[in-house]
């Protein structure tokens, strides 16, 4: 396998494949058609599928996300694209009050097979309204599934997995990853929703992470190896459901835990993982757990400030050493 496919192309190919195979699938969102997608994910799809299936929506996040829910309830398999996670807050009512509740509120009568994709994450100097990582909020809500593809393979696989799921699935694509290249095997059997992936095996410390932070963690692991620390790096892949089994197995092996989460610390995915380890594997731990998260500040524009706010390789290395008792 080569490293020839970008994350962007992987998402696009997955959408293309799904739309060719299933007439119920359509893509709807702001600028997905004529513009080709804010991050060029859907470039070329309008030409192939026409404007009835690649639908340019007005700036009505609540309206078109809700329309996606309605269409899903009425037999379709919509993919709703929301330009960035910050804009998804305009659709929060539809996602939390409708998509997540309808199956339960209706006593199991109406499921919502909807896929919502959106860009997330900082690092592009886009300031405090385009850079946040709010996927942890959505992971709080029963009824939703929250996926965070880091690799081109997962970017491809997760579109298909989400479309095959009978319930609402949110896919968070880190915007800095769209240009990242990786290997893609379209014939491979996808790892299911809810399964974490051991990206690098190790025996000394478990680094639990997701999304773009996976690559920072892998770089940190290389650096740590030079100092004789063998880090295990786990790509969570799915924030809801979380793969407790893989997490606890790793904890039992390394007995030390570092979590890297681009969300803020307070009330975050990292906090949830710590709580679960506390509940399920406390006596396996040899040291207090640590985490590297985004500093609790609305992300600033200036590059040096934004860099300082986000998780970085040096911070991960330093914190891993602290967990190892070496700082």
């Amino acid at each position, binding site marked *: 396998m080569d490293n020839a496919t970008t994350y962007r192309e992987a998402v696009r190919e997955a959408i293309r494949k799904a739309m060719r195979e299933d007439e119920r699938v359509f893509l709807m969102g702001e600028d997905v058609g004529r513009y080709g997608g804010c991050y060029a994910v859907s470039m070329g799809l309008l030409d192939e599928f026409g404007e009835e299936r690649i639908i340019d929506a007005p700036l*009505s996040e609540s*309206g078109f996300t809700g329309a996606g829910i309605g269409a899903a309830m009425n037999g379709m398999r919509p993919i709703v694209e929301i330009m960035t996670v910050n804009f998804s807050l305009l659709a929060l009512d539809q996602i939390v009050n409708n998509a997540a509740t309808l*199956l*339960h509120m209706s006593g199991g009568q109406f499921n919502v097979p909807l896929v919502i994709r959106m860009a997330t994450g900082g690092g592009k100097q886009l300031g405090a309204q385009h850079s946040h990582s709010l996927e942890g909020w959505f992971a709080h809500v029963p009824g939703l599934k929250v996926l965070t593809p880091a690799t081109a393979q997962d970017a491809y696989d997760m579109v298909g997995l989400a479309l095959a799921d009978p319930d609402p699935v949110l896919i968070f694509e880190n915007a800095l990853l769209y240009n990242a290249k990786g290997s893609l095997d379209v014939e491979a059997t996808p790892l299911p929703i809810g399964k974490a992936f051991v990206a690098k095996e190790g025996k000394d410390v478990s680094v639990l992470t997701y999304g773009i932070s996976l690559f920072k963690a892998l770089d940190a692991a290389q650096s740590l190896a030079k100092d004789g620390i063998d880090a295990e790096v786990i790509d969570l892949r799915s924030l809801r459901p979380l793969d407790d089994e893989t997490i606890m197995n790793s904890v039992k092996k390394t007995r030390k835990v570092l979590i890297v989460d681009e969300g803020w610390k307070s009330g975050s995915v990292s906090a949830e993982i710590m709580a679960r380890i506390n509940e399920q594997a406390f006596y396996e731990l040899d040291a207090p757990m640590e985490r590297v998260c985004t500093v609790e500040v609305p992300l600033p524009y200036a590059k040096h400030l934004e860099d300082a706010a986000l998780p970085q390789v040096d911070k991960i290395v330093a914190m891993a050493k602290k967990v190892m008792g070496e700082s």
Partner: protein
Amino acid sequence: MELDLAKAKEFYKGMLLIRRFEEKCVELYSNQKIRGFLHLYIGEEAIAVGLMSALGEDDAVLTTYREHGHALARGVRAKNVMAEMFGKVEGCSRGRGGSMHLFDAKTRFYGGSAIVAGSLPLAVGMALADKMMKRKRVTVCVFGDGAVAEGEFHESLNLAALWKLPVLFVCENNGYAMGTALKYTQSETDIYKKAASYKISSKQVDGMSVTEVAKAAARAVEDVKDGKGPAFIECLTYRFRAHSMFDAELYRDKKEVLEWKEKDPLLAFERKLQELNLWSGINLKEFEEEIKGVIDEAVEFAENGALEPVEDLEKFVYSEVSDG
């Protein structure tokens, strides 16, 4: 729409069922059999009955938290609605929804939503699916005048008009968003004009007249099914009871309530039938007895219903998917 005796009986009985059903609900609420919020539809029955008479079984209905009337008029069985309010597993939402969230797949009743205007985008999407699949159906979305102040109202009307979707919006304008009169919340109190501004065929009708609503709905449904795009009906109506069971009604004049009660949809229809010499064909006593039977049976059914086992609490958060 031809109003013959059969139709007259259907309309009158439909409205009377809602009235008596809800009066029973009040009693059961006082007896603490029904809990949570209970929003009564009394006074507004003509809209549900007139509207549902225009729909076919393939059509879909989405509505609000004041939806007992819509559910009953749509054909959701009274006993399943009552069991729902009792929180029983035989309820139309298995006791997961309650008064505000009645759902019924059989009659394509997609629920009461308790987020004001929250179901409008869903209706747009349901209609979008029908259009894409070339199905000749209409999705009806009912909401109150309070919804008009929400962004989702405007987003949805624009989308429906822009994409020429087969959706019928029905605004039940009872003059109050909970306790605040329309004139304190809207710069334009003729709501149908707002819909017209989105280039939606829209109309204001007397919501206390079952025949007026039925006529307007039938025409709108026909147009929508003919592919003419969305339609909008504003029904002027009034809620005779408090907003919910926790409302002291400090915001409206008793005189105003009495004036509207003169327009009671049951009385108004009775007067109309007298004018048409059809009233003599209505055996009110027989209706009352029949409806009492339906309601007594519903209460008994709900009383004897089962509670969902607590072990099943976490069911229906996600679909149960067979591994094949």
